């Protein structure tokens, strides 16, 4: 057999030759610039783990305590670094445990490659030990998936996997590799994938649509921008900021869009959606031109579609053609990558300001401040609020921290009140609403941005869904800060029960363990705060700690998150109490 020497693009390794499938997988990961991956070994993936052992100087494998944790960690890593997150697991239960994280990555457009081991190809379909049809199971929640049964497929399929995961609208890809393919020898050569015939990741920019959009924006009297994660995924923060500043248009964000421009930017008017700010929600139904940028009009953003922005002309900047006219009809659709479309838009915009219109946002902020924000951030009552904890973190982090939140009341509070100076700073499970996301995601976030403080804000419910990842934190010593806002309730469900189910608190009260003792059991420094006077000191101590740190804050049991657009109501019917 002829052998050839090739030079791998990113690793500068002289790779030859005839190698096994398992080694090829590692070489593919290195060639794609992977330095960290998250996973859990088991029978069908053991050959790859054997190679990971040999390559541990170049590939950092993080052993999570559950495969779900591996996916969320990979997501956290991807969300802060902008790189593809990688998770690896064995067949059967190992593979099925990845599904929640994959579904989360799919709906939140997170680039991720999951590698699963599979039983040997001659056993496929025989109900072999730990065999599951992970291709069939993962199909509806992956951007692409593929089962490798021959080692010779590995380089091309792996290259395609990374290309598809990161290009266009990013998403998760699952590659299932049979055990025999891992052992098989073949002639390895790696070439990065730059195109797939049937796949058009970025629609071609139509200059006429940009001109039409600019004309409509320039002629508007009360324009409003709602931006989403598309700005961050497109690495278009600078272009976006320039568009906002030149056009003078008040700009509001979805929870995945926040941090694309600083929270304190004068034209940043806050969050839209169910627990968003009063002004941008109500004024969505008063603006004359609604400029949606890299967002998908999720139902938690729009409330009742029949009464959503009906008076407004809608311009939709979007990379995914399937999102245009899906929920809200666009008068003008500008398809393309946000970096490209916003750069094309900028020179066509007139320098403008809308002082009166902008004042409407400020007035409504004042109403919201007096009714809600003041009581959240500077409460006069005895019980601690979630808001004041966020305010305490802001005081120390000065907007430099990555905030990772779970799902529920604390998430809405974190997204409403956390201050951000830098992009890619808010990591949360937006579309899927996955409780248990934050603790493992924070591990990945810290590894993806080691120079930045990473604070996980978690409720007492979601925390216990992936609490075992404290083991991962202990073992890796990854210095994440964990804040559990404990109200001994599944708070958001309880809030809905209070408001919509006549306070029938069905299965929402939690009898909780001693969280501090548990953290200490994992040798993580920990403390509990029950009084206001202890709070700021505890936060300072946590933020100053060199290693991981756990802080439990006992908050008011039955606080509610307001404002709130009840399900099915109009954005203009947002409730302040």
């Amino acid at each position, binding site marked *: 057999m002829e052998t050839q020497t090739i030079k791998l693009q990113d690793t500068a390794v002289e790779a030859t030759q005839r190698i096994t499938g398992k080694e090829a997988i590692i070489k593919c990961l290195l060639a794609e610039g992977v330095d960290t991956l998250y996973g859990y070994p088991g029978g069908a993936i053991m050959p790859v783990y054997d190679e990971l052992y040999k390559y541990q100087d170049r590939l950092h494998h993080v052993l999570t305590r559950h495969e779900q944790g591996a996916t969320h960690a990979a997501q956290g890593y991807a969300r802060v670094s902008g790189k593809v997150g990688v998770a690896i697991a064995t067949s059967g239960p190992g593979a099925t445990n990845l599904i929640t994280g994959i579904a989360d990555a799919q709906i939140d457009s997170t680039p991720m490659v999951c590698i699963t081991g599979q039983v040997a190809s001659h056993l496929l379909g025989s109900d072999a030990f730990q065999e599951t049809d992970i*291709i*069939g199971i993962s*199909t*509806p929640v992956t*951007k*692409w*998936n*593929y*089962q490798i049964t021959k080692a010779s497929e590995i380089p091309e399929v792996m290259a395609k996997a990374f290309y*598809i995961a990161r290009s266009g609208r990013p998403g998760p890809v699952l590659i299932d590799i049979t055990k025999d393919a891992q052992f098989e020898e073949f002639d390895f050569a790696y070439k990065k994938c730059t*195109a*797939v*015939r*049937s*796949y058009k990741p970025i629609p071609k920019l139509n200059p006429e649509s940009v001109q039409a959009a600019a004309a409509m924006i320039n002629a508007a009297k009360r324009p409003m921008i709602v931006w989403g994660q598309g700005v961050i995924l497109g690495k278009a923060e600078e272009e976006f900021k320039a568009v906002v500043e030149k056009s003078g248009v008040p700009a509001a964000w979805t929870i995945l869009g926040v941090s694309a421009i600083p929270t304190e930017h004068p034209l940043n008017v806050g969050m839209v959606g169910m627990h968003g700010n009063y002004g941008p929600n109500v004024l969505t139904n008063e603006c004359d031109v609604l400029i949606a940028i890299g967002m998908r009009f999720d139902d938690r953003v729009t409330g009742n579609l029949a009464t959503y922005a009906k008076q407004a002309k809608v311009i939709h900047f979007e990379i*995914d*053609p*399937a*999102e*245009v*006219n*899906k929920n809200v009809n666009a008068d003008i659709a500008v398809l393309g990558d946000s970096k490209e479309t916003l750069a094309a838009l900028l020179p066509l915009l007139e320098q403008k300001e809308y002082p009166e219109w902008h004042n409407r946002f400020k007035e409504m902020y004042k109403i919201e401040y007096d009714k809600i924000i003041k009581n959240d951030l500077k409460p006069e009552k005895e019980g601690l609020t979630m808001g004041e904890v966020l305010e305490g973190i802001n005081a120390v982090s000065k907007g430099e921290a990555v905030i990772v939140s779970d799902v529920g009341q604390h998430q809405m509070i974190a997204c409403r009140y956390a201050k951000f100076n830098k992009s890619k700073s808010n990591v949360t499970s937006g579309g899927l609403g996955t409780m248990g996301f934050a603790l493992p995601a924070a591990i990945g976030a810290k590894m993806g941005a080691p120079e930045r403080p990473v604070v996980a804000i978690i409720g007492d419910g979601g925390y216990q869904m992936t609490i075992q990842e404290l083991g991962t934190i202990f073992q890796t010593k990854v210095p994440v800060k964990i804040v559990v806002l404990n109200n001994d309730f599944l708070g958001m469900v309880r809030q809905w029960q209070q408001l919509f189910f006549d306070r029938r608190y069905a299965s929402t009260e939690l009898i909780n363990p001693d969280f501090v003792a548990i953290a200490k059991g994992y040798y993580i420094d920990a403390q509990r705060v029950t009084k206001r006077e202890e709070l700021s000191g505890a936060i300072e101590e946590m933020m100053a700690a060199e290693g991981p740190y756990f802080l439990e804050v006992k908050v008011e049991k039955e606080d509610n998150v307001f404002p709130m657009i009840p399900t099915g109501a109009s954005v203009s019917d947002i409730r302040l109490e």
Partner: protein
Amino acid sequence: MSETKTYTVSIYTENNIGLLNRISAIFQRRKINIESLNTSISEIEGVSRFTIVINLTEERMKKIIGQLEKQVEVIKAFYHTDEETIFLETCLFKIKSDLLFEERQIQNIIKESNARIVTVNKEFFVLEKAGRRSEIELLYRELSAFGIMQFVRSGRIAVTKDEMKISALLKEFAE
């Protein structure tokens, strides 16, 4: 806008295992019944073609096309009304051979319906008929009276009156 119509969806794809699952999942997830489904090669080498018939409003149809085209291995998807396509289905009847000789009327039915006898042996003969659904249904009703041993009907196959610019699209990629 909200009127339901019969649409023929033509999907040009790569020929990969699992794609049928991925495509059917798009309909399944939205609880849209697939009236018929056919897969075959297409006019382009290495490109497969799905022909799917569904009843939907045009508004939903357009959204489904978006979801189909979003799939990595789908090259292009089109939808057409019955008026915009030439379409037919084909079917096979297996019938006892005695009837062919004993029941004169069967021979008339075969002749009038433009059905074709594919094979005859001592026990049974096989009749093939291609055409519109209504023609096949008529033949089915007529033959039912005599007893049908087996019946099978294919999914709809269709070509469009207008050009589907798929080759141009693929050429664009090659450049």
